[in-house]
């Protein structure tokens, strides 16, 4: 219905503008404060347009796209605003990777949370409801505590793991194994009842929680790193992490958008959805798989950041209503802004906090405020 698309486009444009604004402002905040205009100039200066390619006899290290290939690419820089190299380095090397990582993780968690709440018709559902986050935690904590054990287990992935992304890959694998395991446990004869899935998810989460606690006991000197990861943090973000989520998150979020109508119909109950022509089991499989991979990717690069996937969809639902064609894109964009803002707060205090503490500490009171002042939409 055109009216729906008009609303989607209107809200999305506004929230996208908000996200750009939050990112720009955030890039200026820190020990050295940088005016927004300078931030824009720095980003514009970084714009590079490939204008020429040259074959070379040997491989050259010419940036992430052509690494290892015998290619030399010429880039033209259309903008050259006068900015100090210190400011440029602060924005491009320190702040922007972290901010963009926060934005993509926020988008991913809020989209997955919206889908899970609709899918389970349960307002308490969050992205980790089927055990994905707990699985990621086991993967990550195992890597920190006993990397040799993880290497033995993930033998074929050894080259990848050795490349410095071992923690992320171990977490991502843990997420997928847990999510898929819960799905298999809850499925019988090609059907996956939502209630069974929910209970299986809770049970597996509890079990994996026990595994993490046990690993914590034996973590010795790495306990600080483990705790920090478990609280969710974005410090030390790298451009390669940004590149990974910049591919995975938008692509999977778009797949979820394509299922927004199915999600609406599934809200009426599965029997109704089937009678209306939706292949409910297939749609459920796609929604579960995509939002689990999305959550797994987000958790792998940021640890377990709670509450974003729970609070943001609720807040946005109050604003735009339950129609997922409007709710999904808006809540995704709002999630990005929320996490960037929360992380800016986390890193700008006297001592840096894990962002998970900020999202929970700010999110929970906000949620209670919503509960008291307005009736939270039932699903």
């Amino acid at each position, binding site marked *: *219905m*055109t009216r*729906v*698309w008009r609303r989607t486009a209107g809200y999305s444009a506004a929230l996208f503008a908000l996200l750009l604004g939050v990112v720009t402002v955030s890039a200026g905040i820190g020990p050295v404060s940088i005016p927004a205009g300078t931030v824009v100039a720095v980003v514009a200066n970084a714009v590079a347009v490939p204008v020429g390619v040259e074959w070379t006899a040997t491989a050259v290290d010419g940036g992430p796209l052509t690494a290892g290939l015998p290619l030399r690419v010429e880039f033209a820089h259309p903008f050259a605003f006068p900015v100090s190299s210190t400011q440029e380095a602060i924005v491009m090397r320190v702040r922007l990777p972290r901010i963009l990582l926060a934005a993509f993780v926020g988008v991913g968690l809020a989209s997955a949370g919206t889908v899970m709440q609709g899918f389970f*018709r349960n307002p308490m559902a969050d992205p980790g409801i089927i055990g994905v986050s707990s699985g990621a935690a086991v993967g990550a904590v195992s890597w920190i505590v006993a990397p040799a054990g993880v290497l033995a287990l993930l033998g074929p992935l050894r080259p990848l793991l050795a490349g410095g992304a071992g923690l992320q890959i171990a977490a991502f694998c843990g997420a997928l194994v847990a999510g898929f395991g819960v799905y298999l446990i809850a499925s019988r004869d090609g059907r996956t009842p939502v209630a069974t899935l929910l209970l299986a998810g809770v049970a597996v989460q509890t079990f994996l929680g026990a595994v993490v606690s046990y690993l914590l006991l034996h973590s010795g000197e790495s306990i600080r790193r483990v705790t920090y990861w478990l609280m969710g943090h974005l410090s030390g973000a790298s451009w390669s992490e940004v590149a990974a989520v910049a591919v995975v998150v938008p692509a999977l979020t778009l797949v979820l958008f*394509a*299922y927004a*109508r199915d999600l*609406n*119909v599934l*809200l*009426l*109950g599965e*029997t*109704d959805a*089937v*009678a*209306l*022509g*939706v*292949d409910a089991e297939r749609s459920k499989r796609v929604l579960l798989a995509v939002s689990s991979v999305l959550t797994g990717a987000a958790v792998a690069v940021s640890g377990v950041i709670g509450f974003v996937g729970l609070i943001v969809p609720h807040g946005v639902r109050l604003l735009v*209503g*339950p*129609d997922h064609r409007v709710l999904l894109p808006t809540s995704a964009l709002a999630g990005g802004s929320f996490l960037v803002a929360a992380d800016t707060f986390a890193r700008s205090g006297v001592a840096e906090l894990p962002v998970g503490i900020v999202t929970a500490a700010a999110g929970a009171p906000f949620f209670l405020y919503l509960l008291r002042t307005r009736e939270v*939409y*039932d*699903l």
Partner: protein
Amino acid sequence: MIDRSDGGSAPDDGDRGRDGASDRDGDPPMIAVRDLVVSRGGERVLDGVSLSVDRGELVGLVGPNGAGKTTLIAAVNGTLGIDGGTVELDGRDRRELSQREVARRVATVPQETNTAFEFPVESVVEMGRTAYVSRFGTTTEADREAVERAMERAEVTEFADRSVTTLSGGERQRVLFARALAAETPGLLLDEPTASLDINHQIRTLELVRESVDDGKAALAAIHDLNLAARVCDRLVLLAGGRVRATGTPREVLSDDALADAFGVRTAVNDDPAVGSPMVTALRDGDRGEDGS
């Protein structure tokens, strides 16, 4: 005008559909069920049921609680699997059709739906078009027109923008009916469409069903109120214990001894003095029980 147009008294009327085949120019019946077996939890809920519904015909499914009426409707619209026999929709085996194709042939009005979320009425009716909208596409002009027509027909246009959660039971039932009409299917399935309604809304809902049938739809409706069923349906199918106990015009089915068998209670059947259709009264042991027919 709610009562069935032919009065149900024409002698040839009872033969129609008794053998499960259509008598209309060799067209296959819109809904044809043959020797249908459906098991749930290891128990046969339907055990060899056959019936058919033609276009322009309203067939009432009656029978005691647990007779398998809802199961039969679910087996026809694809929400339940089939363990034996066939369901044909417009001559095509249901199991060879995708769920989308099934939903373009028969639309279902459920007894109740999960309406504990604040969708506006128009969005709910628009969901009736689900089987026509492609995953990456948006609704077309044709979809919008179908939604508008359905809302007008079911008289819900006036609260198109209201949330379904704010509607009364009767209004909500009309919204679900509009949703089924919006699908513009030749077949219509109704599962106790009047169960939760007061007598005024019962009549109005069935009036809407009757109108659609007179316009050429084939409708199969589970109705537990025998008198109401007798009044509006062209034919009745009496289900009990997962089998068809009787089929024919309301007068034939209701005066049949099968009725007493199926419900396990003595009954008296009289003509309703107001509308002339058969009227069933269940008798207690002490009642005299004169047979009205």
